[in-house]
């Protein structure tokens, strides 16, 4: 265990924990868009910047990546932090002016407008979808393509992916609702910012409802070595 100070409060934390995790455990609010406990920290949105002092050196770090240390002094809000967060929010708001999540967070951080020309996106390129697909699902069906300002979230060459199982994890972790899926009849429709895919749903042998993508169920059967008929019934109709 290490002891550190966050906003003047002494807190204890596990070694190896990040400042953001420790702050959350202690009900100290730090805004963040690209972090999720399901995946490794990434450090892209930069909203979680905090000021750390070690010895005489004071600097801004991304709290989602910075691991706690004994005697560390952390400020989660200062004028410098606030002005950086506001500018970052202005940039995100210009990118996604019509996105509810971004609007709400901007408002919360005291930003109600942006100085920049408006675009119309929902995706903030935080890569949570890409990381979940890789680290949690393990298929890497989607990635961030191109570089810099042309960066986009997509399947390779924007074509239907051979490996995507239609699980919808990408939509689930997306912090801005830029990815969506819906099941209509026997089909699941996944919509990403640049393209989309359709998946055939499996019909429950007992109740007859369509309950999960066939590809996803096949993937699980293979991965954990289940009997081929393990998912013939939906969870409700299983013993």
């Amino acid at each position, binding site marked *: 265990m290490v002891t550190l100070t966050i906003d003047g409060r002494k807190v204890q934390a596990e070694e190896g924990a990040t400042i953001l995790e420790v702050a959350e455990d202690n009900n100290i609010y730090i805004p963040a868009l690209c972090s999720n406990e399901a995946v490794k920290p*990434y*450090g*892209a*949105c*930069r*909203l979680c*910047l905090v000021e750390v002092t070690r010895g005489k050196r004071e600097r*801004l*770090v*991304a709290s989602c*990546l*910075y*691991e706690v240390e004994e005697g560390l002094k952390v400020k989660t809000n200062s004028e*410098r932090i606030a*002005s*950086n967060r506001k*500018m*970052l929010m202005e*940039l*995100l708001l*210009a*990118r996604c002016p019509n996105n509810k999540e971004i609007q709400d967070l901007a408002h919360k951080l005291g930003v109600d407008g942006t*100085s*920049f*020309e408006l675009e119309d996106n929902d995706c*903030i*390129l935080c*890569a949570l979808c890409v990381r979940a697909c890789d680290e949690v699902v393990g298929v890497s069906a989607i990635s*961030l393509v*191109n*570089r*810099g*300002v*042309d*960066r986009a979230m997509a399947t390779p060459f924007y074509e239907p992916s051979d490996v995507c199982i239609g699980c919808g994890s990408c939509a689930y972790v997306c912090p801005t609702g830029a990815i969506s899926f819906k099941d209509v009849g026997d089909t699941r429709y996944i919509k990403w910012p640049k393209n989309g895919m359709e998946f055939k749903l499996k019909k429950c042998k007992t109740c007859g409802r369509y309950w999960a993508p066939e590809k996803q169920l096949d993937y699980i059967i293979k991965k954990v070595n289940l009997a081929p008929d393990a998912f013939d019934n939906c969870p409700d109709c299983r013993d």
Partner: protein
Amino acid sequence: MGKEKVLKRLGSPQELEALRASIVKSRDPKQACLVVCGGTGCLALGAQKVITAFRRELKERGLEDKVSLRVTGCPGFCERGPLVVVKPENILYQQVKSEDVAEIVSATVKGKIVDRLLYTDPGTGKKITYESDVPFYKKQKRLLLSDNSNIDPTEIRDYLALGGYAALSKVLFDLSPEAVIKEVKKSGLRGRGGGGFPTGVKWESCRQAPGDKRYIICNCDEGDPGAFMDRSLMEGNPHSVLEGMLIGAYAIGGHEGYIYVRNEYPLAVRNAEIAVKQAEELGLLGKNILGSGFDFDIKISRGGGAFVCGESTALMASLEGKVGEPRAKYVHTVEKGLWEQPTNLNNVETWANVPLIIENGADWYAKIGTAGSKGTKIFSLVGKINNTGLVEVPMGITLREVIYDIGGGIPEGKKFKAVQTGGPSGGCIPEDKLDLPVDFDELDRVGSMMGSGGMIVMDENSCMVDIAKYFISFLEGESCGKCVPCREGLKRMSQILARITEGKGKDGDIDLLERLSATLVDSSLCALGSTAPNPVLTTLRYFRDEYEAHIKDKRCPAGVCKELVTYLIDEKKCPGCGLCVKACPVEAITDMGKKKPVVLDQEKCIKCGACYDVCNLGAVIRK
């Protein structure tokens, strides 16, 4: 590939020394040698034809035994290439063409000089015979570059003849790894890739970091526009880099090394590959080097050309086969770098300095330079400068000396405006700072940086807003796009600068640029983003009036930004000579007959400035 027979493996330092002695003995120091630069600059200017012509001439005249020919890396004076130096006298011939070859060979055999190919000192108007008397070379201190002319980079014997690998032999048998680190620390060597971190301290941290393996990396992913320092070292003297890496590996305790070199440098890739192969054959790389028991291998990895891959963590990701994107360095790469193992990365020039320090001692090295920056630094001097080329100068030399004494000043008698140092994310330094001593800390202090050593000179015809726009748009294109401030911020900076240069700048744009810059500096994930605002911040600091003229007066003082420039004919001055009529590419100027002023159609004018440039009488006015 290597043209010599297979080399015999060396099993001891004595065998290395014996080989060196035998190479030196087999060569007559008085024999004439024609040294032709085969560096990228001279090759672009037609050096290959000159080389072929020399080969043919020497063969046809049966002189191959009397006069030797050596194709080398870049000596630096690219402006005057293709360059030929006749050794041992060091007679410099410049702008040599294949037609000049027969005359050079005849003169060399007779001990004469081809006067017409000598360099003329623009100051005195006199011809200069010897390379070292040329003003471009005189003020330089060429510790690293001078050997480029003495070495055929594809021939390890040339490097050995000059005492190459003696420093390696010394550390393997006479010094402990700790002693090597101590020596490098004492020398004051700082990283030449841009950061300026003390090299010895980095090595020590890497040596002490816990881990199963330690990796050694040479960063040859030089991507700054106009920069070719590392390229020229790797092309011209690859063994000096390998020897530096070997010494570092021994000191740090690493047995695997990588040279990450951009694929756009085909000659650097080829020469590095040949050098590694030859060093392996001689047992200077591989297992049990020189019988010391120390093992070290080097692999060459070619980069795909992303600027950001010069950033150490992005480079390591790329080496691992991942997308070249940086990660936060709260845990340093010396602790967890390549494949999560302690990794020491240095740039080409840093590595090339190491054998010199070991050979001559830290005290000798530390005497060169300033209090905080030791040794020499190579700069690629480009832009509006008479002597474009590669210069190596002691740290602490003033910008004025580099630009005027070595660089020969600004072409066409124009006025100096600014020099941009440190690559695209460096800053623009104005005229009143020309006496600034060039070192890591002084450049930082004025808002620029050493970077890897780019130096771009601008004259009075450069618009500083346009310059800032160029660099920001370069960086916008090279940002990996991972973090919000760099990706979104550079896009917005680029848009704001574009509108200012188009005459659509708004009140508050300067303030917005400053606020954006502050956020990029503070919050970017890597140094690409955090240093990217430098061109904007320095031009705002030193040339704010130009921004204001664009925004408030809708005027570009340098006459560069097309939307803000109008060309007019001064009817009183124009004699109707018609020069401008011929120069205009869009037929916007009409000849009205002899002695009558021409007429310029503003509707057709594309504001290219061709009429302005061609008129000797000042009859074309730029507003």
